[in-house]
């Protein structure tokens, strides 16, 4: 291993150590963040509970980010950063990771966050349906995966050294909760269940400091027209879609079921992939999108040289395609037309976004954002959407074992290519996830998991 490679390999732990004393860095502006005020945010799908471990719909993700906190976070480069854990150290063999909890971390009920709750959260997480949890469960030592030597430390033991082994702990489902599900996020829910509207008040004891807003009201505003009317009447400040805060955070994917004809033939899948005019779709219907045919958005995995798409032989078949309701209708119509041009008669049916990835259909068109904004975990999650393929598994395993971050990125490119070349998951475009915000609202952010982040939001006086 060359010296520069060694330097890059050890950079992540050192960064984590440095972050032991780091303070939160709020968004800067001339006027400056202002404390005070209430923000009213609309979600199209208010969840029935605040449990962070169930589901990933936008409303649930928003509430989980407001009410809950995880042991680690993920920064814009996909590297773990301190959250409830103020830092960590690794043993010399790279198998044992010791997380130090912040002494100041407290739940909304005022009780200290201890390693006992962290361990309970880890066990609950490992038993959940989270793809990141599945990765972590497979990586941890089976005999003694985790221990709590004292109230301030949680120790994880891995079967072998892994790249970025703590990244799964940034999954919302890994949030640490206390008695009766109480959280320790930046905002404190003022009701036990969301209902049609829930207020969350600023939590002064949050590990990154009290948020700027006094409170956030999350309201169930199903229907674009209803939301628009509320926004126009001044009763909403933030709603999904629009020209406000945005991030290229979703992949538009066409999944083909290789167990059903005609897609049981690889050449049929090649035909479908070659039939899509990605540049045209983005130019006409997805402003701000990226037509590069990659399964991960550029912020997760930097672009690689574009592959040429082979044009396969025409098909003659009828299929059913499930389309997520969050896919713009003009986009799905265009794709249906493109498939028709190569001989596929498509019967499209709209399904809920949460069901679009698993709906029983020969083809599925959906918008996908990763559970954790880290390229390795994101590819694992994607690979789980299609039947396991040996080449993909081998490439992902090799990337997971590579500790040099640059070399690992190259291996992740290889894994992404292996996954894509199966043509079971066909990338159409990278798509921006955007929101509309009232003038004078600042500090809103969309992360690479497509989640709206409100903890640094503030309002002009």
């Amino acid at each position, binding site marked *: 291993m060359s010296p520069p490679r060694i330097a890059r390999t050890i950079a992540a732990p050192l960064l984590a150590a440095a972050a032991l004393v780091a303070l*939160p860095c709020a968004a800067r*502006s001339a006027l400056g963040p202002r404390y005070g005020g209430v923000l009213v945010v609309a979600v199209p799908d208010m969840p029935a509970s605040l449990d962070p471990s169930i589901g990933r719909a936008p409303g649930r993700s928003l509430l989980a980010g407001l009410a809950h906190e995880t042991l680690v976070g993920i920064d814009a*480069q996909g590297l773990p950063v301190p959250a409830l854990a103020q830092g960590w150290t690794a043993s010399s063999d790279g198998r044992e990771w010791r997380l130090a909890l912040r002494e100041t971390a407290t739940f909304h009920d005022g009780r200290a966050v201890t390693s006992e709750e962290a361990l309970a959260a880890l066990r609950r997480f490992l038993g959940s349906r989270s793809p990141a949890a599945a990765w972590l469960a497979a990586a941890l030592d089976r005999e003694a995966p985790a221990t709590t030597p004292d109230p301030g430390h949680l120790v994880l033991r891995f079967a072998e050294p892994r790249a970025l082994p703590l990244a799964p702990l940034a999954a919302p489902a890994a949030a640490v909760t206390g008695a009766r599900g109480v959280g320790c996020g930046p905002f404190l829910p003022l009701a036990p269940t969301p209902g049609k509207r829930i207020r969350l008040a600023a939590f002064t004891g949050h590990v990154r*400091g009290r948020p700027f807003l006094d409170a956030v009201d999350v309201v169930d505003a199903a229907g674009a027209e209803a939301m628009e009317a509320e926004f126009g009447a001044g009763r909403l400040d933030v709603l999904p879609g629009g020209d406000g805060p945005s991030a290229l955070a979703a992949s538009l994917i066409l999944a083909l079921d290789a167990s059903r004809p005609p897609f049981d033939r690889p050449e049929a899948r090649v035909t479908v992939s070659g039939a899509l005019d990605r540049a045209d779709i983005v130019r006409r219907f997805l402003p701000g999108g990226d037509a590069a045919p990659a399964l991960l958005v550029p912020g997760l995995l*930097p672009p690689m040289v574009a592959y040429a798409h082979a044009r396969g032989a025409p098909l003659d078949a009828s299929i059913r395609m499930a389309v997520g309701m969050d896919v713009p209708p003009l986009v799905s119509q265009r794709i249906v037309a493109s498939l028709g041009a190569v001989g596929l008669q498509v019967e499209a049916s709209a399904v809920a976004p949460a069901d679009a990835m698993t709906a029983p259909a020969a083809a599925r068109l959906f918008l996908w954002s990763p559970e954790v904004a880290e390229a390795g975990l994101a590819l694992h999650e994607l690979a789980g959407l299609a039947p396991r393929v040996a080449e993909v598994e081998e490439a992902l395993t090799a990337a997971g074992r590579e500790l040099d971050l640059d070399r690992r990125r190259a291996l992740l490119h290889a894994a992404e290519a292996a996954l894509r070349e199966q043509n079971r998951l066909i990338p159409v475009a990278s798509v921006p996830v955007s929101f509309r915000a009232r003038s004078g609202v600042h500090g809103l952010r969309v992360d690479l998991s497509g989640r709206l982040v409100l903890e640094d939001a503030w309002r*002009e006086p």
Partner: protein
Amino acid sequence: MKGPAPPRRAAVVLAVLAFAAPASAAPALVRLAEAFAGEVVRVARGRTVEVMVPEDRTRRGASLALDLHAIVLDRLRGRATIRGSGPRLRVRSVLSESPGGLVLSARVVEEPGDRLVDLLSVSAPADESVFTLSPVPAPPAAAAIDVRSTGRTPLLEEPVLDLAFFGDERLVVLGPDAVALYRWDEGGLTLESRRPWPGHLDTVRFPGGLLRVAERDAAFWALTSRSPRAVLFAVEEGRLVERQEADALPWPACPAGLRYRAGTNLIEGAVAGLGPGPFLVLDDSTPGLAVNAEGALVDGAATGLAAGPAMASLWTGVVAAASPRPPGEDDAILVVAARDGSGDGPRVLDSIRVDGAVRALAARAHGEGMRLVAAVEDEEGAARLLVMDLARLQP
């Protein structure tokens, strides 16, 4: 503790520069090229290679990819055979940008045949100086104030919460973790002493801080919203020492003193003539003026003027205040005339544009004019001091 360690002292001998030197465009790109050339040599294993110009996805301009290509070819000289025809490895790459720096990813294929041999990816940490020039902006045409000279320090080690002159020769800089005392030298500012804040510090997302100098006592009070206690610092033999602590910051016309609202940058305390608060800005050099929590300049009544989070007195009846411009715009220092005897409300006399966000201000008579120091933050939250010598054009 016997004063600052030599490296820190050396680091804070801050040259006040009229203009920053143009940045070198080399380091990040060179590091990237050298790493990439090393990978190409590793993969080539003696075979002939063809290295294409990278596809540029950084949107920084086509010359970046061309420069990178030229440097890569230079670094391959003597280490690999470069040829564009015949049996060879063809290296096609994409140059992109991540939050941490530049990334170059490539496919290596065997020609003829286009068989994939390997995938490469190298990165180089961002080096902002590669792309950013940082001259001090020329002040706009003056209306009431002549900005005679402007200089700025290099980046400081931490954010600035408040500034105060401490006599003619010293400047106090209050940060979230520590208090620092600088001495004016011919070329700039030299750190004399730095004192970490005593006791436990709360985590505050955007902390506030307040200084009140008692020159006659060679001391000053300091309070930040990270600590529940105000501290009186004195200077003894050139070193800052803690002399006293109090539950609240003693303040004129405020018998109970000032405190910060927990977890915020809002100052609480009833100040005679200004009302009960809370306040965003109070400055003992501008008695009778404050910025309230809504960002309005108040002098006992609403003035109709908005201001940002800093204020300092210039001349009698004239104050400097940070502007209330929203994010995305350059900030400015407003020169404001206070309410006069005729009862007319405060009015803006002039404004001085600054590149960044004004976080703290301090001013003191200097020669025939006025020296104004502003702590200015860039978009990344890094602070530097802007030092301006001002003269008044109108009485």
